[in-house]
């Protein structure tokens, strides 16, 4: 199932401008594993030259760069009237910076340190080619989620969920098999005010697991230690 959409992504070409070589390595490794073609630049000037010379499907920009800064590259690319999606990657996350960069034309913003899973999700969202499941019924194994009526059934049996439990389940079900970090879950299912309060996710996951998995031999809700949670019918080792 995973391979079916990975094939679609084979031709996607991404430019990564990141001066921290180690960070760049990790991202490149991760993206290559996802079958993206990745070009890397470690300084602003060559980053801009590459962005100017080739048609990329996506540009990932670090803000603090030698030569040109990320913001300057962003401005230059946008002045060229290029519509390429740009994801800003930064250690700076002041509100002011965020607003300024969005105004200059950044499409998304990710603050270090981030979970690689989150970077993947955002890239997919920006490329709009990922498995953005828009169907009204989501299926994972024998689990069925009707997004219109918000009804959840497993093996044909209805499961009663609270509103929050439902939001959590629906979020996890949009990308079956993908690991969601607690921070991602907090930001999507709760809001910014709960920053740092990741234990609330654990409590909700436990409640959800009781209702979803306890009565069934095949577990759908998996914990990946240190990373987060995923919903999948493939048993993980």
């Amino acid at each position, binding site marked *: 199932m995973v391979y079916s959409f990975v094939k679609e992504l084979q031709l996607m070409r991404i430019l990564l401008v990141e001066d*921290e070589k*180690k*960070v760049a390595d*990790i*991202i490149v*490794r*991760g993206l290559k594993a996802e079958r993206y073609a990745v070009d890397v630049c470690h300084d602003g000037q060559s980053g801009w030259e590459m962005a100017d010379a080739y048609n990329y499907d996506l540009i990932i920009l670090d803000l603090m760069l030698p030569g040109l800064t990320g913001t300057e590259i962003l401005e230059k690319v946008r002045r060229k009237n290029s519509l390429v999606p740009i994801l800003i990657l930064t*250690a*700076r*996350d*002041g*509100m002011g910076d965020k607003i300024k960069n969005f105004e200059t034309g950044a499409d998304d913003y990710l*603050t*270090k*340190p*981030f*979970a*690689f*899973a989150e970077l993947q999700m955002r890239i997919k969202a920006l490329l709009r080619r990922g498995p953005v499941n828009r169907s009204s019924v989501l299926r994972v194994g024998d689990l069925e989620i009707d997004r219109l009526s918000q009804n959840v059934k497993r093996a044909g049996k209805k499961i009663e969920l609270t509103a*929050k439990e439902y939001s959590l389940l629906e979020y996890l079900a949009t990308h079956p098999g993908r*690991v969601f*970090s*607690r921070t991602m879950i907090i930001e999507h299912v*709760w*809001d*910014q*005010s*709960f*920053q*740092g*309060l*990741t*234990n*609330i996710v654990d*409590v*909700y996951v*436990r*409640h959800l697991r009781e209702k979803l998995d306890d009565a069934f031999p095949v577990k759908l809700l998996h914990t*990946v*230690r*240190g*990373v987060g949670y995923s919903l999948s019918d493939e048993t993980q*080792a």
Partner: protein
Amino acid sequence: MNTRSISFRLVAWYAGLLTGIFMLLCALLYLDLRHFLENDLRQSQSRRTRQIANILLAHVKQTGEPYVASQTKNWYAPEINDRFIRITRADGTLVYVSDAPKDGSFDPAEVPIFPPSSQTEFSRKLQLSGNKTLLIAALNFKSSGNPAYLVEFGDLLDPVETMLNHLFLQLALGLPLAVVIIAGGGYLLVRRALTPVEQITRAAERITQYNLSERLPVSSTGDELERLSVSLNRMITRLDDAFQNSKRFVADASHDLRTPLTILRGELENFAADQRFDAELRDRIGSMLEEVVHLGKIVEQLFTLSRLDAGEAQTEWTRFDLSELAKTTAEQMSLLAEDKGISISCDVSQPMPVKGNHVRLKQVVVNLLDNAIKYTPENGAIHLRVRAVNGHAVLEVEDNGIGIPPEALPHVFERFYRVDQSRSADSESAGLGLSIVKSICTAHGAEVGAQSAVGKGSRFRVKLPLFSKGNIS
């Protein structure tokens, strides 16, 4: 009036001193004048007795006693001038005695004869009926070939007394008036001189760690107060620098830790996802990842604090209902509490309009509730209350948990402060939640405080200005 204030004490001291000096001077003046006037009178009397003796009595042999008497009467006109003149021969025969003065103020017959005296000149004071005092100078006149005579010349002391009384009255009335004027004027002067002190005090009260860029007013008078405010301002500048340094440190540190954390996290995630490793190894990597994530959380909170220091919570203000916010937050947090068997009761009755950064104020409620849940044992109870008190919205989070010892209470809002040092192994919290609460509250002009009793529970209280159309622009 504050009797310990510098102005009061200064004025009291110097008015007291001046009053003392004035009284002393007045007494001296009075006594001196009295002495001078009597002396003056005495001298003119003695001059006159000598005139009578040397001009008239010296030639009594030639002129005869009746001449002396008539001349004396003509020269000195004692009846008109309220004087007493008497000339007595040594054998006691009366040569001349003045008549009673025209106004009949005394009777010369009342004046007793002097007892014989060996002194040539002397004087005495006689108390007459009608409370009158007669000052009499006497001269024993002896000349060869003549009998000895006693010449007495007296004046009423009344004019002197009247004058002295008048003076006394003037001083007695003038002194209190002078003291009042001096004290009043002095008070005004001192107040004026101390006004800059008042201003400096008020300005200094306003300065906290959040507005260290403000300075005290400096009056360019070149006086001690100018020097004081200038050196206080220098001190504030040094404090400001120190605060800026520590803020910059937090901002820089939380920023610079991000890249290594990203690398660590990325590498570990790769390992954790690599199916080539066995489950146990991946579990250990997961444990490391958990710590990296926790470290990231601390860095995140520090960064939040430095953003709050930079005034982030002062932006994006909207008007909203604090009661609503409290209610929904309590609902969102209720499962976390239920997990420990703790009940959250929410006591919000009426809408409470406030103005502020919604996300950040919600974080205040979240952090306070999280804190309460953390330090309340199983089956405890948490009360969340929002009510209006004197134009303020007061939000209270009360628990019946383990409480905070009194010595720790003043520090709970400090960064990385832990009530129980031994519990620092509790990896879930970094001790930053309450300092974030404090920072957000300060940015909103809200007061935040804590009350607690060990073993009984704690109460955290946030007092935020109520929004009404008039008070916030």
